[in-house]
């Protein structure tokens, strides 16, 4: 039974309000802080982030380590294996592969970032307007989206590339010609959901313009899905750039991208496999990192959205 002490009269005195252990609610964390904590706890995403940061560092600092550059040919030292002078060897024109790989990585990433940026600008504007205004505007824009979505993107990109002068910007433009469509679909769906919320109504009663409501109130609330979509559109752009180079529609020499290097590597695959291996490895690491980061972002920013 109980100890006698507890049966004493004073134990049955009422508790003052302050003495009660009332429930203390855990302090609410902000959306982004919370997302960062979730992102950090995802091992794969963290590895992806570290890999990409390392890779960027090397891409910028690495070329300073030897005296060569990406375009000087030296026909006396073609197809050399890696050495103290040429870390990754040389290609069939005697160009230093170390320099070329990092130059190519920067070009590939640049194209991907420009393409992703264009995707966001076009996709968010299109999707935002379509979802926000609804009605007839939305119906027409939806048709356009549906048609754009059902065109095989590789066909359009290839045709555009036959038309455009190959260069960083034209390639990025060609990639985002179809790349904005998924973004527009995501943004439209989110805006449709958000626009009926009270705070939009409140803003409207206070006389905010459509532009203001859409870009100051709605779009910021769609940032999560937008960021996720961007993270995935970067590896996809890198893939398509490499693909274009591979079928001969990419950048022109002496310029290089990872795709160009991989496709050059193929010509000498049987004899000098290292010329394919290094650019392919860097290409795969970039793709892998962005996909891992994308997965982590998806879990962190939008736990409900999994597909």
């Amino acid at each position, binding site marked *: 039974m*109980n100890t006698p002490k*507890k*049966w*004493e*009269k*004073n*134990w*049955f*005195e*009422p*508790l003052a309000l302050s*003495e*009660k*252990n*009332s*429930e203390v609610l855990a302090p609410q964390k902000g959306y982004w802080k919370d997302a960062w904590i979730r992102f950090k706890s995802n091992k794969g995403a963290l590895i992806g982030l570290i890999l990409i940061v390392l890779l960027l560092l090397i891409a910028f600092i690495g070329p300073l380590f030897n005296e060569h550059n990406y375009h000087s040919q030296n026909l006396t030292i073609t197809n050399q294996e890696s050495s103290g002078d040429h870390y990754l060897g040389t290609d069939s024109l005697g160009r230093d592969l170390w320099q070329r790989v990092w130059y190519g990585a920067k070009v590939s990433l640049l194209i991907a970032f420009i393409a992703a940026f264009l995707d966001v600008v076009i996709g968010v504007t299109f999707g935002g307007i379509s979802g926000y205004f609804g009605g007839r505007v939305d119906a027409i824009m939806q048709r356009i989206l549906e048609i754009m979505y059902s065109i095989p993107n590789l066909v359009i990109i290839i045709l555009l590339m036959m038309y455009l002068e190959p260069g960083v910007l034209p390639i990025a433009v060609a990639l985002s010609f179809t790349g904005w469509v998924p973004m527009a679909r995501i943004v439209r769906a989110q805006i449709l959901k958000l626009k009926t919320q009270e705070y939009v109504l409140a803003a409207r009663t206070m006389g905010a313009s459509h532009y203001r409501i859409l870009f100051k109130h709605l779009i910021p609330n769609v940032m999560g899905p937008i960021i996720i979509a961007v993270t995935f559109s970067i590896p996809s752009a890198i893939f398509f750039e490499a693909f274009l180079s591979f079928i001969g529609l990419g950048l022109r020499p002496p310029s290089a991208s990872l795709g160009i290097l991989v496709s050059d590597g193929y010509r000498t695959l049987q004899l000098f496999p290292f010329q394919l291996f290094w650019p392919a490895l860097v290409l795969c690491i970039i793709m892998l990192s962005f996909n891992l980061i994308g997965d982590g972002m998806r879990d962190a920013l939008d736990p409900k959205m999994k597909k």
Partner: protein
Amino acid sequence: MKPILEVSDLHVSFRSQDTEVKAIRGVDFTVGEGEVVAFVGESGSGKSVTFQTVMRLIPQPPAKIDKGKVLYGGRDLTKLSEIEMQKIRGKEIAMIFQDPMTSLNPTIRIGNQISESLIKHQKLSAKEAKERAIELLKIVGIPSPSERVEQFPHQFSGGMRQRAMIAMALACSPKLLIADEPTTALDVTIQAQIIDLLKNLQTKTGSSIVFITHDLGVVAEIADRVAVMYAGKIVESGTLDEIFYNPQHPYTWGLLQSMPKLDQNRDQELASIPGSCPSLVNPPAGCPFTGRCPHAMKICQEEMPEVTKSSSSHQVACWLQHPNAPEVKSPIEPERRWVD
């Protein structure tokens, strides 16, 4: 009354990497043959977990039955193998769930969903099972059952879906029906129909029903006995009259007071119990209701109150029952007619 289900000292916890939630902390009760017992309490009080444990439907892990017995027909259900449990589920003990929208498989015809358990437990052929399914739909009051049997859940209204769920549960004439908030997701008028249906079926078949709800109005309609749960424990239990006319636990008082009354002055605010259930990660040593109890005493924080009996059927776990405790008058006016 002969008991059909006896649960004693049941402890269930949920474990994740670094936390352990003690969801059920020593629950004892019995359900008699042909009896309707209501389990009342707010969300998180452990009423659903208790019966999902009885049915062994809680996923293990993360859930773990730490202690206790669930006796049904002389067997301890916590000790049975999964295969043996499958012979009991649906056949001996059936369950209906809160949300008929999500509890039916959207891609399978209603008839086939009812037939499944008939084919499994009564070894009927597909054709016989379908005929029986039509009969069952008729019994639960679904018009033109022979057409309805071919339809998909989304073609049914909310109330009809819950009727279909009941038909599924009744398919093998179970001895015990566990209804987990079967009316919560429904419109008020439909709620009444479903309660009536359950009441009628219960009188016809004589099976026992456990009715889990947080709605005391529903309890008054259907229950013989009531158990009030709070933070993983039964804080008070008794017959319907005892709970409604002579409640002893301050939590029960709060629940009864928070029921809206017809003759209530409209300007008067609805009573509510301030605060929420304590976290069960580190459950308090004393009475879990202390933090929200208007009559809390020092001892309430220190020690869990013992169960005291005020009649053969009425049990309360509250320090106010102790002779040393100050006299506290029940705020529930006894002249009120709660039950007809």
